[in-house]
């Protein structure tokens, strides 16, 4: 076994790669060879350290020295000074911006780790199918603590004090919701876990259920204890077979251990959980629709009040929280409200899980404290934009949210800030877009989603969104007029103002936010019939560059609509009125003689 004494880890994440990681590696290797340290030191490329703004990063093990903004030319000094003489290179160390102190041991600079895992604390650590591993990480201790040491009121107070707000999007204070449900008099109450995660591009809840199902079970039992319910239901998407399987296994184990069922931990508390399958309707994320779906009905929302906490499932008081909200509960009980409320911003406590995706290097599931800026998420954790392209927009809140520009990158993420910026927290989808994305098309994409998912019960959502979509379609096809933009705004505002449920009330947000932030793109579409990012096919123009065309007739033969004319060995010509922009000519031309504008 070769036993290197020293490891040099170089950030080889896609973000850093563009800043010469390979060169640094080569250079370090060269100087290690020169110094005859080949048997002692090893150079390894790693994934992203999540500190891209200071990249490239070189970390030296075992002493945890953390060098930032390293250039290939720094390799010699690192090898000669640090490796040979044991003297870290001071000028490459990270400087604390406040104290101006250099920090050499990265163990003391955890702050660069922008992520903080609370809801995801066990995901990727434990075997989700082993209740033992969950118990080993203090699993079910919170339930035990509540049942033996805390009254329901005290438990609710703890949750209220923690400042936890609903992670499904609305951000309603969880403790308050529990209290209201507790105060509703009834012979039977229910705890419902909303696992009908439907945002396109969001998979936070699924990951939690797949990675740590017991934390949700434990939290539901705690909730049942608090509100006075002995029955829980998990409403989960049928499209999540693995999550269903893991949850089913976890429920079985919990029952076998007596952590569900009658007389839990000998305290006389009974609690049982059943699974209800969703069947592919986004609107069922809305709690009244979800409840109707669990009752075997069409998932149409009903007007609130009455809220489910007063009259919910089968008309009984029902507390509905989403998966991520529940996953926070055991930690809050175990570590205390004070600990939890230290994290985050004034009005948004704790962390938020995001599914970071789109045109970003490190697509992944992340969890950050509230108050982290969008820039930190996109550039440090996400490793920046893919293929070195320009950042254009970040979309949060799914089909209910908005598209934010680079002007908002330094906005600290919390419920209120995102709302003020014209988007919303939503359940945690975060999609990054680059210069190639057409914002009118993006708005249209979200509306297509809403259109398909609208339940059709109320007129503004059923017909209004259809009309919005038709106007956007018209714009992307090149038939838009300037007054259409005003019409979009007017109609959007009425849909928001008059729709029955949250789906309709938020469905125009992608339209409004793209108009607000990217009006010039809309104007280019309607005034010049031009799509600045070249995404709107109908607005593209294929043209033959006369000088490059050899008259080989290949394009002529491949055009499906006969839009191309020309003599053999003479430059050809595309009749724009006939062209259907299929791109066949562009693909076939061997001489790059066809340009796209």
């Amino acid at each position, binding site marked *: *076994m*070769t036993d*290197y004494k020293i*490891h040099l*880890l170089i950030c*080889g994440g896609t973000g850093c790669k563009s800043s010469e990681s390979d060169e640094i590696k080569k250079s370090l290797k060269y100087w290690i060879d020169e110094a005859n340290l080949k048997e002692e030191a*090893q150079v*390894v490329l*790693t*994934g*992203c*350290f*999540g500190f891209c703004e200071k990249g490239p990063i070189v970390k030296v093990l075992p002493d945890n020295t953390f060098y930032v903004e390293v250039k290939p030319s720094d390799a010699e000094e690192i090898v000669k000074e640090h490796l040979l003489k044991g003297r870290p290179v001071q000028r490459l160390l990270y400087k604390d911006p406040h104290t101006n102190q250099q920090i050499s041991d990265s163990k003391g600079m*955890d702050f660069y*780790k922008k*992520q903080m*895992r*609370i809801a*995801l*604390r066990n*995901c*990727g*650590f*434990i*075997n*989700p*199918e*082993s209740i*033992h591993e969950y*118990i*080993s990480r203090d699993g*079910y*201790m919170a339930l*035990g603590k509540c*049942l*033996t040491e805390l009254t329901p009121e005290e438990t609710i107070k703890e949750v209220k004090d923690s400042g936890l707000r609903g992670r499904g999007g609305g951000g309603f204070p969880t403790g308050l919701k529990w209290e209201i449900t507790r105060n509703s008099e009834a012979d039977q109450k229910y705890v419902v876990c909303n696992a009908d995660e439907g945002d396109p591009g969001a*998979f936070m809840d*699924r*990951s939690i259920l*797949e*990675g*740590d199902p017991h934390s949700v079970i434990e939290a539901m039992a705690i909730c049942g204890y608090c509100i006075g319910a002995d029955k829980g239901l998990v409403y989960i998407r049928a499209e*999540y077979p*693995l999550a269903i399987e893991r949850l089913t296994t976890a429920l079985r*184990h919990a029952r*076998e*251990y007596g*952590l569900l069922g009658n007389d839990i*931990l*000998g305290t006389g508390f009974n609690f049982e959980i059943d699974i209800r399958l969703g069947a592919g309707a986004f609107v069922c994320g809305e709690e009244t629709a979800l409840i109707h779906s669990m009752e075997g009905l069409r998932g149409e929302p009903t007007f609130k009040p009455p809220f489910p906490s007063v009259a919910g499932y089968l008309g009984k008081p029902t507390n509905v929280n989403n998966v991520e909200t529940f996953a926070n509960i055991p*930690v809050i009980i175990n*570590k205390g409200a004070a600990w939890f409320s230290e994290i985050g911003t004034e009005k948004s406590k704790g962390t938020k899980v995001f599914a970071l*995706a789109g045109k970003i290097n*490190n*697509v*992944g*599931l*992340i*969890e950050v404290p509230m108050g982290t800026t969008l820039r930190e998420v996109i550039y440090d*954790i996400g490793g920046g934009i893919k293929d070195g392209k320009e950042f254009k927009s970040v979309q949060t809140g799914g089909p209910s949210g908005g598209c934010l520009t680079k002007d908002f990158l330094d906005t600290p993420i919390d419920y209120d800030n995102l709302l003020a910026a014209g988007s919303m927290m939503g359940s945690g989808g975060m999609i990054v877009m680059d210069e190639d994305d057409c914002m009118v098309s993006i708005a249209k994409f979200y509306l297509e989603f809403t259109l398909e998912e609208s339940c059709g019960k109320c007129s503004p959502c059923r017909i209004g969104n259809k009309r919005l979509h038709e106007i956007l379609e018209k714009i992307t096809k090149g038939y838009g007029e300037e007054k259409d933009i005003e019409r979009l705004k007017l109609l959007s505002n009425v849909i928001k103002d008059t729709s029955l449920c949250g789906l309709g009330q938020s469905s125009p947000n992608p339209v409004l936010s793209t108009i607000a932030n990217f009006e010039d793109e809309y104007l280019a579409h309607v005034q010049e019939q031009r799509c600045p990012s070249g995404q709107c096919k109908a607005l593209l123009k294929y043209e033959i560059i006369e000088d490059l065309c050899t008259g080989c007739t290949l394009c002529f033969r491949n055009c499906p609509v006969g839009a191309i004319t020309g003599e053999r060995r003479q430059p050809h010509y595309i009749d724009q009125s006939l062209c259907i922009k299929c791109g066949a000519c562009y693909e076939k031309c061997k001489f790059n003689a066809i340009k796209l504008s």
Partner: protein
Amino acid sequence: MTKIKTLADLRKIRDEVQSKIRLRENSDHPEQVVQVKVGMATCGIASGAKETMKYFMDELEQQAIDAVVTQTGCMGYCYAEPTVEITLPGKEPVIFGFVDKEKAEEIIDVYIKRGELIDGVIPLTFRTIDD
């Protein structure tokens, strides 16, 4: 399985499991095992984590390396799936990304057998509730 009837029972089980794990992590005993955790959430499986896990199990057994291969949930590095965490005896866990069969072979040959790090290590980028 016996029912956990009291909080004390629960604590006992927790302590037992924890000490078992600690034993595995901290002992200098030469016979202790290598731990391999494969991220087996939907994203991992979609990227081939099942095949990766099977490869580790078969290969480690065939090479008579004392190892425990288990599954775990999403580690969060969707861009680098399948992800595998290897804990060598007495060492910090190390996560590798993009672990297909070839990479797994390299991990076994170079890291598990020789203790040499290889390219593709994913640094931990988050704090946990224990920090």
